């Protein structure tokens, strides 16, 4: 990375902004001055998703997007948490949604984050799978980032069969399909 400001150097090799003085340290002059450090911070968890998310993740390993239905409103939640957030009752019926869906919101990412981030700029989006009441998070590729729009129809690109696993990473990304856009009013309340 390039320096974002002018750095002056003291005769003894310590780098500094001009106003700081340092003692003569003699043999320190051959050392590359420290200007930037990597200080990663990590938290390590044992993650147990629970029963309903486990059912959902096992579905992804079979290229299925499985939601669960609210017994009162009929809304299908994905990923399911085992209960309806609207009425607080357990979801009982498992419903396959998608795999096609519509983009409900998106943003263009210019600074990639994490080891699996695609080359920038790319599009992160919320995708509403057909039949679901809420959107899932994903990456939209195979289209220039400035052509992505709300309502655009997309489908998941699954991992190779050998790489399918009970993980969100079984959906490698989403890509556009040649279908008419979903009108915005049908997406209202489903982000």
């Amino acid at each position, binding site marked *: 990375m390039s320096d974002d400001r002018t750095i002056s150097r003291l005769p003894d090799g310590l780098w500094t902004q001009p106003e700081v003085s340092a003692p003569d340290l003699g043999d*320190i002059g051959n050392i590359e001055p420290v200007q930037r450090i990597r200080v990663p911070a990590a938290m*390590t968890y*044992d993650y*147990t998703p629970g029963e309903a998310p486990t059912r959902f993740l096992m579905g992804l390993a079979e290229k299925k997007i499985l939601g669960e239905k609210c017994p009162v409103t009929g809304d299908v939640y994905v990923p399911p948490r085992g209960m309806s957030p609207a009425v607080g009752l357990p979801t009982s019926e498992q419903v396959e949604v998608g795999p096609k869906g519509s983009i409900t919101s998106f943003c263009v990412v210019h600074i990639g984050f994490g080891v699996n981030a695609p080359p920038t700029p790319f599009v992160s989006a919320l995708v509403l799978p057909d039949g679901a009441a809420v959107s899932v998070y994903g990456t939209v590729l195979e289209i220039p980032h400035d052509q992505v729009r709300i309502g655009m129809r997309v489908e998941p690109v699954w991992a190779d069969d050998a790489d399918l696993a009970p993980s969100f990473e079984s959906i490698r990304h989403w890509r556009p399909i040649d279908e008419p856009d979903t009108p915005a009013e049908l997406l209202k309340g489903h982000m």
Partner: protein
Amino acid sequence: MLSAPLVIEYPFNRTTGPVIGAFLTGLQAKRVLGIRGADGRVVCPPVEYDPQTGAPLTEMVEVGTEGEIVSWSWVERVRDGQPLDRPHALALVRLDGADTAMLHAVDASGPDAVRTGARVRIRWADELQGLIGDIACFELVDGDGGGA
């Protein structure tokens, strides 16, 4: 039911600024720098602004690589990512020439070997990288070689 390790990591990249940069550069030469505060006291590790007045500080001074334990506690169960992978003391160490203390690990055979006021010295890392970890830990000057 599924269960899996989940690591949430933030890959921070930090510019050090002139004061911390000089401190870390010094560590690579096995030298320790503090900074003189507005009241003349030497703060080590150095800070960029005076703890009392907030004024920017500019005069870096070298302090010793030995010092004394000001306060400490014993770490019996060691978590990942600590300076030592065996039970050790965590201590506030005031280096000779400094008026404030730094927090670091002290290698000792057990809590009975550690006391406030005990003399300690820096044990340098095998590979110096310009990070605080260049100070691998402190060890007791009249010590027992640590808890190896």
